[in-house]
């Protein structure tokens, strides 16, 4: 997988974005410590971590808004410290909450960015269409809902036809419909625009639905980085069976070699292949157990996240 990625990626090291030993100290406190991000071309990279873990500080450094205390950032195989402007020409960003000039219309806001990027006028309408804001483009942004402001921010980030899109907490503060809308938009972008996306969030469930690769940061340190599929493998998935006479059923399954454990609503068995589960269910039905539910336990990814970040409590 990584070999494949290396072949189709930019730069001599093979990664589209790569940081080495990235460190930031703020007021004597190390906010980001020795972070080595690796983002491949075409990835939707989910940058995860509890609030205050250093996500936004890292992203600020990636955009040249803050200077690293130590470490290097390479984007498109170039050094950010040396070729900031060249790199930023191909990067679109939306940091933390959308930036906008509230007294200006959506169109005027985009026109400001367009002029600064010296992009053709048509890009504005293209970006507005992508985020479906054409109808409201003539209104002052002050009157937009948060979701619309967020979409305008994404439109602004897309104006320069970036190779890399950096989105910091793009769904923060949105209602479920808004979240869904932004999520669908983000998922459609790599195919539509050939863009690589770095996306930060404090919600694993959010990133899980979009990302192809994840990095987890906790207390300033990158504690995990791999494809999302591997993170999912780490979750010891189990199948829960709700059924009549659970204790008896458990004994039966144990005697047939299943690793059945008691559970508050029945019993659980390891999530093996489908045939094995089907066989177990068939066995139990033959023994006249009534099966109410067969369900996969989905909380395990969150618990792996909690285990990795060591937060234990709420994020």
């Amino acid at each position: 997988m990584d070999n494949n990625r290396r072949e189709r990626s930019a730069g001599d090291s093979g990664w589209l974005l790569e940081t080495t030993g990235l460190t930031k100290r703020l007021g004597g406190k190390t906010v980001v410590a020795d972070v080595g991000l690796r983002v491949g071309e075409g990835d939707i990279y989910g940058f995860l971590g509890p609030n205050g873990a250093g996500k936004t500080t890292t992203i600020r450094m990636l955009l040249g808004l803050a200077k690293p205390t130590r470490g290097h950032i390479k984007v498109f195989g170039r050094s950010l410290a040396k070729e900031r402007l060249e790199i930023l020409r191909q990067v679109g960003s939306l940091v933390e909450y959308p930036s906008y000039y509230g007294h200006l219309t959506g169109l005027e806001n985009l026109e400001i960015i367009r002029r600064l990027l010296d992009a053709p006028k048509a890009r504005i309408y293209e970006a507005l269409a992508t985020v479906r804001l054409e109808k409201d483009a003539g209104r002052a942004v002050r009157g937009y809902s948060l979701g619309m402001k967020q979409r305008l921010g994404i439109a602004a980030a897309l104006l320069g036809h970036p190779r890399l899109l950096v989105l910091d907490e793009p769904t923060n503060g949105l209602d479920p419909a808004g979240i869904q809308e932004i999520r669908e938009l983000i998922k459609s972008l790599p195919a539509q625009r050939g863009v690589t996306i770095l996306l930060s969030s404090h919600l694993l469930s959010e990133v899980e639905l979009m990302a192809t690769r994840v990095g987890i940061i906790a207390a300033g340190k990158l504690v995990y980085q791999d494809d999302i599929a591997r993170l999912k493998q780490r979750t010891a998935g189990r199948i829960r069976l709700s059924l009549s006479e659970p204790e008896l059923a458990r004994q039966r399954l144990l005697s047939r070699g299943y690793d059945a454990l008691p559970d508050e609503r029945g019993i659980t068995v390891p999530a093996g292949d489908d045939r094995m589960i089907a066989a177990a269910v068939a066995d139990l039905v033959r023994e006249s157990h009534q099966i109410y539910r067969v369900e996969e336990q989905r909380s395990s990814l969150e618990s792996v996240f909690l285990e990795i970040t060591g937060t234990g409590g709420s994020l």
Partner: protein
Amino acid sequence: MFARLLSVEFMKLRRKGVFALAVIGPLGVVLLQAVNYGLRYDYLTRLYASDPWGGLLGQVSSLAVSALFIGLALIASMSAGVEHTAGGWKQLLALPLTRVRVFAAKSATTLLLLLGSCTLLLVLTLAMGLLLGFEAGEIPMAKLLATVYLPYIAAMPFVALQIGLSLTFGNQAVPMTVGTLGLVVSMFAVFLPDWVPYGWPGQTLEAAGRWRAVAGGAVGGLLLLAAGCGWFVRRDVS
């Protein structure tokens, strides 16, 4: 490129009332003088009988310097304020622009708006003199230009100071307090030693020490702008 950056700065100030402010300042100064001359026409024309234009310029300039002090603080604050309220810094500075250019564009916006106000003051003063029936052939052009533009140059350190403060503090109450205090101090500057910069814009109106005040303002202004730019380039954006 710089022209584009500047056009964007002016675009951001649309519907913010900055342009109205740039007009209201000089208009207010001249209208107050219109009231002054309207109420005391006979007295003032007799007082300045030998040099009616000079008299008018003297009256106008006394108000204009105060208007300049508060105007530069207001304009600098509004131009920086659009970025602070919108959280616009992170978006603006993550664009492929050098920080020096961004700082230069912000400063140029303030300087150009003030220059526009000064020019408008010149035009309005001329118009008022002609309306008062002063001789068009006797217009003291050199003195008129000096009255309008020299205080502007001498006030440059304060323009630089207000730009620096407005860009640094998200809460615009800080630069506005400093700016208002500056206005108050400048009104009593005649009681201060000549080297105090708050007196410089006023000193450009007197023959003695005029050029020292102008030179001090220009050099001090440039130095402060350079210092502000150096700070702006290095700082982290939150």
